[in-house]
């Protein structure tokens, strides 16, 4: 599903007192954003309150796997009222509370329903009552409702968030992709920014069989950049991994042709149009 990226804020750019919406269509995307949200809170001296939908145990296990046993993180069932837990954390002297809620499915109602509105209003009031000490992130699994309901979802939140960029030096921006897994490159890929791409490829999760490099926002790419793209498999341990080049701009097409690297093994140019 295509996201209007421009209207989304990087999770790392959220401010204390924000009430934001995390609409995702892949669990890896949710995990990346939620994890960044929690880390940022812990670093700022906040307590973290996690309202889990399907019973707290699954969420507890998942959080422990990432953050270890950390008593600053509290997991509650999503059907409960978080107000008491928030007040308690603030009384205990935490700088603030990071509240994140699994709000996707049936118990909360779908966007547009009265139960949904009541729930989001309650979160909004809670954030407003302690602003800026409470920051909230509501997780919505887009697979549960159609894209037509997105406006109703956004309306209830101050912002929509996306995962943090992997790299951004003002010349090249590298953003993570989740479904399919990969990277989106924006700006200029050349000899000076290529090391960032190489590093980002090295840091990618090796769990994915194949990798998508979305080049739709690449403004310029020189021969060194094209070499970096066709050598994207250099650092992987994944056997027979395919690199799918998506929406290749004219400069990449041209350089692939004149360099003779178009037929490099493991490189697939996704057909356009």
């Amino acid at each position, binding site marked *: 599903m295509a996201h209007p990226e421009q209207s989304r804020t990087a999770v790392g750019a959220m401010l204390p007192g924000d009430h934001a919406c995390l609409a995702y269509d892949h669990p890896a995307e949710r995990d990346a954003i939620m994890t960044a949200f929690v880390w940022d809170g812990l670093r700022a001296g906040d307590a973290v309150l996690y309202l889990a939908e399907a019973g707290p145990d699954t969420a507890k296990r998942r959080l422990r796997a990432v953050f270890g046993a950390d008593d600053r993180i509290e997991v509650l069932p999503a059907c409960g009222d978080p107000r008491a837990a928030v007040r308690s954390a603030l009384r205990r002297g935490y700088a603030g509370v990071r509240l994140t809620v699994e709000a996707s499915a049936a118990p909360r109602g779908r966007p547009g329903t009265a139960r949904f509105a009541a729930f989001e209003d309650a979160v909004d009031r809670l954030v407003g009552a302690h602003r800026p000490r409470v920051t909230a992130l509501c997780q919505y699994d887009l697979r549960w409702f159609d894209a037509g309901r997105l406006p109703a979802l956004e309306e209830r939140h101050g912002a929509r968030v996306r995962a943090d960029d992997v790299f951004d030096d003002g*010349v090249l921006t590298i953003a993570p992709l989740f479904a399919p897994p990969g990277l989106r490159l924006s700006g200029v890929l050349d000899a000076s920014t290529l090391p960032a791409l190489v590093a980002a490829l090295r840091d990618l999760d090796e769990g994915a069989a194949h990798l998508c490099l979305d080049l739709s926002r690449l403004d310029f790419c020189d021969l060194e950049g094209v070499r970096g793209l066709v050598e994207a498999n250099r650092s992987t341990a994944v056997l027979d991994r395919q690199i799918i080049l998506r929406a290749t701009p004219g400069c990449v097409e041209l*350089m692939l042709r004149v360099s003779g690297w178009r037929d490099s093994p493991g490189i697939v140019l996704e057909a356009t149009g």
Partner: protein
Amino acid sequence: MIGFSAEPPARPVADHTAAPAPGEGADVLVHQALVYRTRRELELTAVPYLRAGCRGGEAVVVVAAPEVTAFLGGRLGAETASHVEFLDAGGWFGGPMHALATCFDRTRADWWPRGRVRLLTEPVWTGRTALEVREWKRHEAILNVAFAGTPTAIMCLYDASALPGHVVADASRTHPELAGPDGSVPSAHFTDPADFYDECNTVPLSQPPAAAACKAFSTGELPALRDFLAAEAGRLGLPGDRSLPFVLAVNEVATNIIREGGGRGALWVWAEDGELLCDVSDPGRVLTDRFLGYAPPHGRRRHEAAMWAVRRLCHIVEIRTGVDGTRLRMHVKL
């Protein structure tokens, strides 16, 4: 696979005087000139050459003007001609680098997989500028190196009744063998391709005109340089859809100067005789130009890969290097 390198080749260039007849050797390049004056002389040598290739199951390709193609097709007979791929010389000989790259692409994709390839080509010399004539002669010399050690036979046709004397004379310097009805003989005037290449570089580059747009560049200034190039190319009449190859080519040269050359340079852009020209000077480096950019990229030879791409993106690229540094001139047809 290709015994080509901008450095001295790993294996010695084949001893052409001892080269077997076409079809007999395995990975041996045979590069012959057939100088003819009449259709009869052409037929007596070219037709047996093509027939032998067809008999041997080789990929047989003729690159010639339509009337030569029609003539040879008629002499071969329909059955034999059906095994020959006829290509139009007009498209093939668009530019020397274009021809070299096309030949590499086709041999690797289509012809070598079938075994040996046997080409009969008639290069186009009419309507060429003095520079183009020189670069086409250079092209003939480069073929000896570019396809050395590959299962390739190339017979190049030279019509002595129509071509300028210097073109025919240089054919015997760029081809190790001269073909005739009684077989081929070593060319007594054959010149080492590296020497011929250097000879082509002895003609100095003219100064850019005073009106040429000039811009200096160094680290961090490539984005601005690209904007400048695109604007100048448009102003000088290069159609928008052909701006990108030009900008990419100059950008590669400038990148190389910044990263591996003197670190800073200057360029001049102007239009002249239906061409867009760009001179790039690298005052800080003396470059070794041994067939630089005439080998397809392989391995991690950054600069050579870049120069191959630059040559492919342009019509003709000239390189002059000396104690004062290096100057590259890129020609793009308007």
